[in-house]
């Protein structure tokens, strides 16, 4: 477990170093870099995931959670940019661990795009939601996720980072040079949406994360699933 975690963390670190020091290189080789980025982040966990022997109960539970994350947009369609998908992913990851969080997040992005239509944003959405789950799962047993205040801050940050990374796909299709100016311009366009996303994460985490985690923990105990990831 420690090994895969290490590889993932190194991969993310390399990517951000590249982003900071060689933005030009990244912009010019969009395809190569974004594929490498996705591989560096997702592959170690996916390999571990496909090697692991899982009971059918665990598989079906993951599928249920991914489907709920995808479907939970439906009743909220009337309220603009309020959607609990991110909340579902974060709360489930806290209860079930980083591996499951990653799978739930990435699967939710994939299946909701299968219904709504795939686009160049699909891989970015998979990485965003997958990472939101993965990090929440990693921090589950630290004070970060145990204290409500930190959990809310995490939800708020995730809301904004999600929006920023989702704006990046336009960038990497070649939108000029990656300068601070263009970055800010692009993100002010979506500021209100990102704010709504961040605030709804905070709102849902504040009111429902306790009961959600309790429900999932109860299921873990009742049916004896996901015992090792904690």
């Amino acid at each position, binding site marked *: 477990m420690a090994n895969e975690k290490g590889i993932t963390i190194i991969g993310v670190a390399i990517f951000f170093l590249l982003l900071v020091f060689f933005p030009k290189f990244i912009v010019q080789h969009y395809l190569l870099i974004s594929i490498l980025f996705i591989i560096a982040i997702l592959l170690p966990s996916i390999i571990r995931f496909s090697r692991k022997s899982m009971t059918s109960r665990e*598989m*079906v539970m993951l*599928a249920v959670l991914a489907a709920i994350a995808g*479907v939970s947009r439906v*009743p909220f369609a009337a309220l603009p940019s309020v959607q609990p998908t991110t909340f579902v992913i974060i709360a489930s990851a806290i209860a079930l661990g980083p591996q499951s969080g990653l799978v739930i997040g990435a699967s939710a992005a994939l299946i909701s795009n299968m219904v709504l239509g*795939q686009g160049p944003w699909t891989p970015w959405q998979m990485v965003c939601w997958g990472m939101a789950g993965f990090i929440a799962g990693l921090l589950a047993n630290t004070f970060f996720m145990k204290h409500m205040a930190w959990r809310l801050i995490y939800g708020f940050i995730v809301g904004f980072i999600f929006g920023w990374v989702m704006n990046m796909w336009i960038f990497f299709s*070649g939108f000029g040079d990656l300068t601070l100016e263009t970055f800010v311009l692009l993100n002010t366009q979506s500021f209100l949406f990102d704010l709504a996303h961040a605030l*709804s994460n905070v709102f849902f985490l504040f009111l429902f994360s306790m009961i*959600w985690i309790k429900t999932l923990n109860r299921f873990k105990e009742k049916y004896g699933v996901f015992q090792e990831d904690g």
Partner: protein
Amino acid sequence: MLRGFRSFHPFVLLLYYIIVIAGLMMYQHPVFLTAALLSIIFVNLILDKGVELNKWKYMIIFLALFVFVFTPLFNQQGNIVLFELFSRAFYLEAVIQGAMIALTLSGILALFTTFNIIITSDKFLYLFSKFFPKWALILMLALRFMPLFRKRLADIQDVQEMKGVSMKDGKLREKAQNGMLFIQILLTYSLEEAVQTADSMSARGYGLQKRSQYEAYLWKSRDWAMLVFLLLLSLLTLIGWKSNKTILTLTPELESMMLQGHSWFYLLSWILLISLPIWTEGKEVIKWNFYK
């Protein structure tokens, strides 16, 4: 029975999309990009008369305009000043750059509308299961749960409305809170049900042996032919890119936009590559009219 471009093996289709997207990003030349966009729009028309493209057209136009307007504003590299506005120079080079990015972006988006028509979710899952068998199983289960949960949510909403809990009126806060309550109910309801599904899977022997797979798509000889053809064209695409014949040089000096010599040849092979669906589908149209 699938016909035309859709009937090729999913791997060949995936390769086509990877090559064309890579080509769109490499060939930064207005003539090449315009030719590509027109071909892709034509592919859309021949596949479903442009129905799918119609759904996305506002998003594509908006993004293309956004990029086209804002690139010259920020890109300050160039020699030829077109005009000045608010003490900011607008360069011809930057305008051309903006047009090229807008063309690339709309080309990629238009290509994805054909992707959604051609790579249906069963083909997508087939490709996925080749690389990640276990994850593909979860996706298949989740994909089946989606419509089921939608129905369950509607039931839950009806029942709760009788009790006076609804998302129809009240403040935003109450609406969101009630909506989340429905999701909460859906969670416990579905998890209990899911355990039954899982136990029934175990009872049928899931996990005892290596999972076997049903091959829904057979590799036919025409797939070989298409694969060889695709690889040849992509090789030409790559050579054209390496030779710089298919890229418009903007700095230090703006190149003429007219094509010369070999460029025409690369343009031909580029159009040939993108329009593969047109002539595979076009053959069917001609056959249909002939036999009628």
